[in-house]
């Protein structure tokens, strides 16, 4: 019931669905033309910046999911819905996953849209149809990871404004990664170091490897490990925050 409510509620709000599809596509479109000449750099892994940048859309879409998840949970807290749920015998993790089902549905729509746009504009997924399915799975894991962070912030603060306030930090995490160039082509030492420690780099590289290289076991494993790890930590933290909030109730 909770999952169904979360899915319907997310997909019924155009302000949650449309920007999360539109902004990554606009960014992809501008980026791929504006930086296409970067493919002339020695060592650049592909001759199409569009192929290179396609992975960004998936992660950027997931960042919007974090915002949506946090806003939805904060709204449930502000309206008192979460207080009423605390009277039921629901397990915390089940409650959390129910709340995040809408984000996973949105993540699925995003992943399929970005793959279709990629195919229409000439990005052949090097790993084939099976690779596309792995991209969808990784994209959903990334959406879950960021969605859990958004939910955690909402549960800790109980405020939609706090969730909006954290949104720029998510963008900082995206920008301080191997977003625009492969890590080995990043010239500035401190930036390359930050990008190396930033899990978002590995999420991008996991998806990117399937688009550009084919089946690169290490990149895929690191992508899933980083997305799954962040999801696990954030889900645990969100569950703990939920327990604290329910105890207060």
């Amino acid at each position, binding site marked *: 019931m909770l999952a169904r409510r979360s899915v319907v509620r997310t997909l019924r709000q155009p302000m949650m669905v449309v920007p999360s599809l539109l902004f990554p596509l606009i960014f992809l479109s501008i980026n791929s033309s504006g930086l296409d*000449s970067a493919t002339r750099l020695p060592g650049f892994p592909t001759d199409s910046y569009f192929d290179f940048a396609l992975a960004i859309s998936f992660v950027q879409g997931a960042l919007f999911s974090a915002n949506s998840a946090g806003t939805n949970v904060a709204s449930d807290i502000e309206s008192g819905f979460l207080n009423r749920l605390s009277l039921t015998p629901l397990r915390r993790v089940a409650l959390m996953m129910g709340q995040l089902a809408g984000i996973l549905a949105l993540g699925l729509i995003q992943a399929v849209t970005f793959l279709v746009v990629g195919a229409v504009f000439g990005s052949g997924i090097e790993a084939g149809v099976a690779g596309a399915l792995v991209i969808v799975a990784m994209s959903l894991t990334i959406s879950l990871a960021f969605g859990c962070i958004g939910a955690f912030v909402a549960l800790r603060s109980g405020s939609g404004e706090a969730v909006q306030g954290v949104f720029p930090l998510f*963008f900082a995490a995206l920008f*301080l990664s191997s977003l625009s160039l492969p890590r080995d082509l990043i010239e500035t030492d401190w*930036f390359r170091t930050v990008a190396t420690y930033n899990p978002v780099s590995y999420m991008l590289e996991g998806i990117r490897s399937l688009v550009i290289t084919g089946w690169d076991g290490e990149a895929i494993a690191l992508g899933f490990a980083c997305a799954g790890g962040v999801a696990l930590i954030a889900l645990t933290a969100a569950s703990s925050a939920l327990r604290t909030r329910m105890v207060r109730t």
Partner: protein
Amino acid sequence: MTRGGFWSVALAVGWRNAHNFFTNPAMAIPALMFPLFFFTAFAGGLSRVDSIPGFDYGSGYTTFVYGFVLLQASAFGGVFTGFSIARDFESGFSRRLMLAASQRGGIVAGYWIAALLRAVFTITTITVVALVAGLTIDGSFVDLVGLYTLALLVNAAAMLFGSGVAMRLRTMQAGPAIQVPAFLLLFLAPVWVPYDLLTGWVQAAATVNPVTLVLEAGRGFLAGDPTEVLPAFAVALLLAAVTVLWARGGLRSAERAA
């Protein structure tokens, strides 16, 4: 109405908005963070781009990026002031202001003063960060006067555009209508690489985008090699003139609704 009436309204509105901006971290921090993110991400993450064959900007990639981020900070100083105007209308403050102001044109002038102060604060901070990060300025003092004058003209045009939208719609939901056109104009210019290295539809868009001239002139001032100066100032002044008319229409619309 007296000139004193106009300026006393302008100074009061300007002071109030500047005070709100500088005492409210929720307003000041995003205004600083976004240009800083872009500067850090582009200057740090894309510095290798200056090795692309045909990249002919002599002052280095950090300076190249600073030229864009300066323009962006100026424009967004104006855009965010447009948000403040929309918020004032939504809260009902502007309705009371319209009733009390002896010269309503002073209201727009007051918001312009606030936008100017915001831009000066943001530009100063970004310039300090950029200098620490290795910004090279090869331009003379006169070049820098030209650069910052251009930036402030862009700030005024963005504020007047935002003011026109906010005063017509009079709701915070006007935010995207203010932000998206400014964002698109800025990013459909040669942001990451010089114009000659752009490809595809972005190059076509940059060719007709007036911001391209302003950006190239700004980068020319920084490099000590002024280019496209007259066309850039003509475009910036034309944008400011057109947006003055746009803001005036917005004020009339708000007056009719008040």
